[in-house]
């Protein structure tokens, strides 16, 4: 084979070409733009299938040797996943006629692919920031005031993550001599950090943490995703956080601290999801919880655990997209996704309702996708000896099923009939949901389809009697809890409201505190001006007073008096001169 074919074509090139084509197409060719968004992932995927593992595309920047493409099992799996997500989301968005959104979504997927294939932190940083820049367009495209504000907050947080990554990358490149992406050891004993290298690792860790929504950094997920367009949200949930999961798996596998973070992350969002009314925000919280599972697995760090993390990431993209697509269809048809004002939609959107239920079951029910991957994480948790952690994950698995799996479909499609009668979702949306639903079932029934593309060899069978029965017990009884609490009226009712989260600090407290600082400085400035004018005025007035013709400074002095004063001054100088 010739040299030309042995060097892989960077997938970004396809996506960039697609985006340019969409941008320059005449306004009348709307359908062609939609076709491009679906075709490009297919073309790029076919090109990807020819690839061999290895490093390609070396270049120099800032005097550093950089690698554009580093291909191995882990990066290939995520690349397959992003192509699949882009294809499904492209079909889901087929009906739209918004060039900004279409071009941005293609570039977004292209940058994600660039990020997973990046061989060094500088290249990763470039794509990291491109991800922020392109994804923000998918929120802006909603074109409402709320989404505009949300997108600015999202953008600032994402860019901040990039800046931290870049600082860390430069420090590591300086210390280690090369910015190649390697496994890093996080020094969790904060007090003993005394080298720049440790600080650099922490900077990179926090950059990754912001991007995948660690506790305290998670609020952007719940803030931005519900503000995105119905179609843009599908791209968003599939990509940004998964790139961060990939990056963590690559550099921080086996970091114990991640298990703790993952456990917190898998549990606390469930509470927020239960009281949240916006069903897309409910799903956003459940995304954070699911990412917690992956983080736990990365923290354990064995080959099998990493397999579990990436398999969960893979399935999570498919079933969460399916749930988000069903909610997107509701948003499109009804105009909102407030649980309090929905209900009974199964009557007019029966197909969407069924897809939504399949998505919910896929979170962790046997025969559906989530089950076959989460099972690996649970068993690795036990093998690693984290009994408490395993119990917490079990609770989180039950809780997330209750808080998003049951809640979202129930309040949208069943519950009390809201009287809304709308059209069924557009055909293209139904088609996209069908693909995702079929994938959920295929992976669930034939887990080897997914297991065969995992980065490490795997010998695991999720289907044994114990496992199936125990999982069913867990899920049936979390459903039972929901039914029982609802009938007792103890389940928090759906209310149109705002629930405070970490974003309260930067949306309310800091602006308010800043206002107070501004007010104080304004006030003190005014006081100063007032006071100083008064003092100056007095000085000028008294000068004027003493300078009048007959006053002390203004009147004519006699020669004797002047000589006497001069004599006094001279004596004074003389005295001090000799006294030293």
């Amino acid at each position, binding site marked *: 084979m010739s040299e030309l074919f042995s060097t892989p074509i960077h997938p970004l090139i396809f996506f960039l070409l697609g985006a340019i084509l969409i941008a320059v197409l005449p306004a009348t060719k709307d359908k062609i733009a939609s076709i491009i968004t679906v075709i490009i992932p297919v073309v790029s995927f076919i090109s990807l299938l020819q690839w061999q593992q290895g490093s390609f595309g070396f270049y120099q920047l800032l005097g550093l040797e950089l690698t554009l493409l580093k291909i191995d099992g882990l990066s290939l799996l995520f690349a397959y996943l992003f192509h699949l997500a882009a294809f499904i989301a492209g079909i889901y*968005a087929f009906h739209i006629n918004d060039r900004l959104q279409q071009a941005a979504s293609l570039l977004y997927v292209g940058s994600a692919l660039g990020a997973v294939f990046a061989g060094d932190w500088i290249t990763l940083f470039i794509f990291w920031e491109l991800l922020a820049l392109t994804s923000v367009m998918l929120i802006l495209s909603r074109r409402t*005031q709320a989404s505009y504000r949300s997108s600015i907050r999202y953008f600032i947080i994402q860019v901040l993550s990039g800046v931290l990554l870049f600082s860390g990358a430069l420090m590591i490149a300086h210390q280690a001599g090369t910015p190649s992406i390697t496994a890093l050891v996080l020094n969790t004993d904060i007090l003993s950090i005394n080298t720049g290298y440790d600080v650099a690792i922490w900077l990179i860790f926090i950059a990754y943490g912001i991007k995948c929504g660690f506790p305290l950094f998670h609020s952007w997920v719940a803030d931005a995703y519900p503000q995105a367009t119905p179609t843009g949200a599908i791209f968003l949930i599939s990509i940004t956080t998964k790139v961060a999961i990939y990056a963590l798996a690559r550099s921080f596998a086996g970091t114990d601290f991640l298990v703790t973070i993952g456990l917190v992350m898998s549990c606390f969002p469930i509470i927020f999801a239960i009281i949240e009314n916006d069903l897309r925000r409910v799903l956003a919280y459940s995304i954070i919880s699911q990412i917690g599972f992956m983080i736990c697995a990365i923290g354990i760090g064995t080959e099998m655990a990493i397999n579990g993390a990436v398999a969960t990431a893979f399935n999570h993209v498919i079933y969460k997209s399916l749930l988000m697509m069903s909610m997107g269809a509701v948003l499109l048809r009804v*105009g909102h996704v407030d649980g309090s004002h929905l209900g009974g939609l199964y*009557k007019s959107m029966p197909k969407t309702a069924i897809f939504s239920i399949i998505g919910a079951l896929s979170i962790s029910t046997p025969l559906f996708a989530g089950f076959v991957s989460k099972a690996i994480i649970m068993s690795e948790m036990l093998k690693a000896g984290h009994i408490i952690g395993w119990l917490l994950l079990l*609770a989180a698995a039950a809780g997330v099923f209750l808080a998003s799996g049951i809640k979202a479909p129930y309040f949208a499609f069943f519950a009390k009939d809201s009287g809304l009668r709308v059209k069924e979702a557009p055909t293209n949306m139904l088609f996209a949901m069908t693909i995702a639903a079929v994938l959920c079932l295929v992976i669930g029934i034939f887990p080897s389809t997914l297991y065969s593309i995992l980065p490490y060899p795997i010998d695991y069978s999720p289907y044994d009697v114990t496992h199936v*029965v125990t999982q*069913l017990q867990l899920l049936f009884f979390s459903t*039972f809890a929901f039914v029982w609490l609802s009938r007792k009226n103890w389940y*928090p009712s759906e209310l149109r409201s705002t629930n405070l989260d970490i974003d309260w600090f930067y949306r309310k407290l800091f602006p308010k505190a800043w206002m107070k600082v501004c007010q104080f400085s304004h006030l003190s400035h005014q006081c100063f001006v007032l006071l100083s004018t008064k003092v100056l005025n007095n000085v000028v007035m008294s000068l004027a007073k003493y300078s009048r013709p007959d006053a002390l400074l203004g009147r004519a002095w006699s020669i004797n008096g002047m000589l006497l004063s001069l004599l006094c001054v001279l004596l004074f100088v003389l005295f001090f001169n000799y006294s030293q």
Partner: protein
Amino acid sequence: MTNSTDKQTHLFDRPEVVKWTLRIFYSSCIFLVLIDFLIHRHVETSVEKVPAFYAICGLIACIVFVLLAKQLRKLLMRGKDYYESPMSTDEPSSNNTLLSNSLDERQNTEHNNNGDER
């Protein structure tokens, strides 16, 4: 979007369907607990030896989450327009960017329009 005027009854409008669905669900729950005594579960931890451990775990976890959520709601819940009123005055100035121009144009059609369907 139209409000309900049709009198057609749907699946879950019929009380007996709801009743039977719940009955089947409750029986499945009982069946799952009973089967726990019949099959031999292989256990890896001592807590798993508790009969119907997973059922209890699922039930308790969910109840705890819901009760916690109820308490948290008292602390965290605010009005819908807590952060920004829908007609707030500090909107981005319309003469700055193309984007805000298009935002202003779309202000009127904002309601019930998600930017997707035009």
